[in-house]
């Protein structure tokens, strides 16, 4: 399977995602420079974490206008798989590929710690290796992960089952205490209506190797590969 990891100026999890895709799940993975057109023949595009353009103005706001994004929009429109992690999620909402916006954390601080996520449904290309209701442990590392959408949009998101991951307790209970950043409805990861563009604040690439001490994230990448193999 061919993965492209987009590199914006200020991306800093690009090499991490590439490492996991290339060296852990052994897939053909290349960087795509933000000024270059999106190469043809990619099967999945990853927008990695980091601080594209220093997070200046708003997170993801400037990166969204990078030349490569035109190709990413087109790729997504044709049903190509797009995964936005952390800053990548922010870029996706700014670009309008996903609804809502990500605001500053409710405690105003950057937060780096493992959190628990409840898998809301596994009928997506990104979660088919998991079960609905599974609780996975994935680290977050962001200052602006507070997901917001106005009530009508939120209702639609929920109605369409677009919420893929919710912050929860170790036992899988979704409550305010388990919500690290103030996101509405504890939303940690969200898919588009068409089901091919996923944005998530937590970092699956940071928990995909035994040596790092956490392995739940690998299932997101395995899901993508499963889905693609099933389609071939």
């Amino acid at each position, binding site marked *: 399977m061919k993965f492209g990891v987009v590199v914006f*100026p200020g991306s*800093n999890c690009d090499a*991490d995602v590439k490492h*996991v895709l290339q060296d852990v799940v052994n897939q053909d993975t290349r960087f795509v420079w933000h000024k270059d057109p999106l190469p043809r023949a990619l099967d999945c595009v990853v927008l990695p974490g980091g601080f594209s353009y220093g*997070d200046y103005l708003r997170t993801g706001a400037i990166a969204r206008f990078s030349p490569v994004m035109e190709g990413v929009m087109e790729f997504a429109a044709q049903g190509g798989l797009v995964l936005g992690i952390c800053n990548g999620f922010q870029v996706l909402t700014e670009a309008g590929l996903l609804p809502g916006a990500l605001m500053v954390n409710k405690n105003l601080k950057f937060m*780096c710690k493992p959190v628990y996520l409840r898998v809301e449904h596994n009928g997506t290309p990104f979660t088919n290796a998991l079960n609905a209701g599974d609780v996975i442990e994935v680290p977050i590392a962001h200052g602006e992960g507070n997901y917001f959408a106005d009530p009508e949009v939120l209702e639609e998101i929920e109605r369409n089952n677009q919420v893929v991951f919710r912050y929860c307790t170790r036992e899988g209970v979704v409550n305010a205490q388990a919500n690290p950043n103030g996101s509405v409805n504890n939303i940690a990861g969200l898919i588009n209506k068409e089901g091919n563009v996923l944005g998530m604040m937590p970092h699956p690439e940071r928990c995909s*190797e035994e040596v*790092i001490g956490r392995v739940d994230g690998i299932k997101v990448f395995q899901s993508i590969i499963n889905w693609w193999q099933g389609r071939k």
Partner: protein
Amino acid sequence: MEPTVWRSMGLRDDEYLRIKELLGREPNYVELGIFAVMWSEHCSYKTSKPVLRKFPTQGRQVIQGPGENAGVVDIGDGQAVVFKIESHNHPSAIEPFQGAATGVGGIVRDVFTMGARPIAILDSLRFGDLDNNRTKYLFSGVVSGISWYGNCLGIPTVGGEVFFDKSYEGNPLVNAMCIGLVDQDKLAKGAAAGIGNPVMAVGARTGRDGIHGATFASAELTEASEESRPSVQVGDPFMEKLLLEACLEIISEDLVVGMQDMGAAGLTSSSSEMAARAKTGLEIDVSLVPVRETGMTPYEIMLSESQERMLLVPKKGTEDRVQEIFEKWGLKAVKVGRVIEERVLRIKEGENVVAEIPVQALVDESPVCHYKVVEPLDRENLKLDLDAIPEPADYNQVLKSLLSSPTIASKEWVYEQYDHGVGINTVVYPGSDAAVMRIKGTSKGVAASTDCNGRYCYLDPYEGGKIAVAEAARNVVCSGAVPLAITNCLNFGNPEKEEVFWQFNKCIEGMSEACRRLNTPVTGGNVSFYNESPQGAVHPTPVVGMVGLIADIDNRLTQAFKTAGSKVLLLGETKGELGGSEYLYYIHKLTAGTPPGLDLNTEQRLHRVVLEAAEKGLLLSAHDCSEGGLAVALAESVITGSLGVKVKLPQFDGRLDALLFGEDQSRIIVSLSEDMMPELMEVINRHSIPYHVLGEVTEDGFLVLTASGSEVINLSTGEITNIWREEIRCRMS
């Protein structure tokens, strides 16, 4: 020239005369400004130089010792670790957020100018007691600043320390350490070699910020200092990230002869130091330097401390390719001069020469101050009379209280704000004795720790200096790594005061002895004097940044107890030394006594035991006994392991508080499964290290300590976890 001119720049009258003599004429204003920063304590080390020579700097592992942008040690397989620590105390006292942020920026540049990709940041921070709003403001601002800058760069902040003591109240210490990884054949140097090679300014444009920052760092903080705010530079981590990527790219294409950060004293120090190292000269035209503001004078351009700038000497003929790479990253690389044979720093503005100074006059001929080392006579007030201190009635209460001391309490509130996972190399997270980073593609890991107990150094600078090195080594050993070398950040008061200079001398002598015995040479660092406030000098605080190597990261260790039923041993001897302890400071409001003694021979044997046991896979955990002594160390292993422990304390004749909270050195608590005991005993006996079997890790979640048959502490892990984990968060919200 009026004496007020050079005096206002921080030059003494005799120094001015020496400048005249070296030039053979009167300096002009620009030249005087250049001398003033280059001869400031911050750049010239004029006071510390003779003392720093005492440090051992040689070793088989050392590839680059002091004198370069950063130290370099060999970690095998053609790889090397580049590391250095630096202070940003005064800027952080004035503007904590930007002060700390630019401190991180500076040290990271020192590492990547060597061609290394930064893989970790550690921060060693000291503040006054965490009970007034000013301290909270400084603490919060410094942590946010580090978080903002380091996170944006995508370099994980994996460790360090935070220590609270009223001596730091008016003058916090902010020391940042960066570690990078490089293939030895890609190592770059800060030398402007090759006559005729171009000199380029790269990165941010030059503005008026931070002019005379180096001089600012070489004077005491006064109440008027807050008015000098314009000296504080503003950081741009995004610019630095681009600069980092662009610089590593030109190094990987082998286009670079030398490069250096325009840090303290900006263009002036980078150009003269690069020329000095290569025994060449430089000619620079300031009218070519990209500026941010209009009407900047040569004086301002030469002395500006605008952040995120580098001076670069590429190979002749590669300028276009260098520019192309910088443009790819959205940056400018501008040719501003060239390397010349004549060993002068010649500054031109267009065709006019505005300054011309022999390089040696700036770098090698800088004045050296030989202050006398005078031992202060009256240290009576530091004597400890234990009989005047009542023994506590309720030890549960005392332990809970100590666990809530901000120096001991969990620093989760701090490191949760730092991205410590980016890079996916961190295999021991913050909160254990040392952080460990894996080296991808190998089985190796690099461990790092920063340490110093300023209270010990205040009470006995020689022993305190020794302990700083030994503790840093011990922490690295507790992660299963062999200590390799150190960098240090020497934070002291005004060296013109006899007592301060004596402290400085003694600390360095103590550190040197420990470095020699533990085979951890000094590879560089930074001296920060004049850490004073109206209340007086800070405690002498020579912070040690230690790096170590683990051959196989599968053998790494953390402090947390792992499984119920495992045996708990205390390696080392318990003497019950309370002098300088956190217990005396926090519970009895006393800074007194003699700090615990340290025998380097014992220390070394202790390290061998733990390392050998770790390598054989005998151990489940290892934790150094430090602030708060044995009781606190046990509590920490219990809390981080979410388990309990049942312990019989060693037989002890003295006071119970001394047994529980004494900070005796050279002690490590280890846990292991029972079947490994015989093998561990063999190792212990072979190295003849005293030990005591403390007891067993329990499932029940209680910390139970008994002394001479009676229970002295019985607390639930849940309760102490809450106290320990929430204290700083509570105080800061």
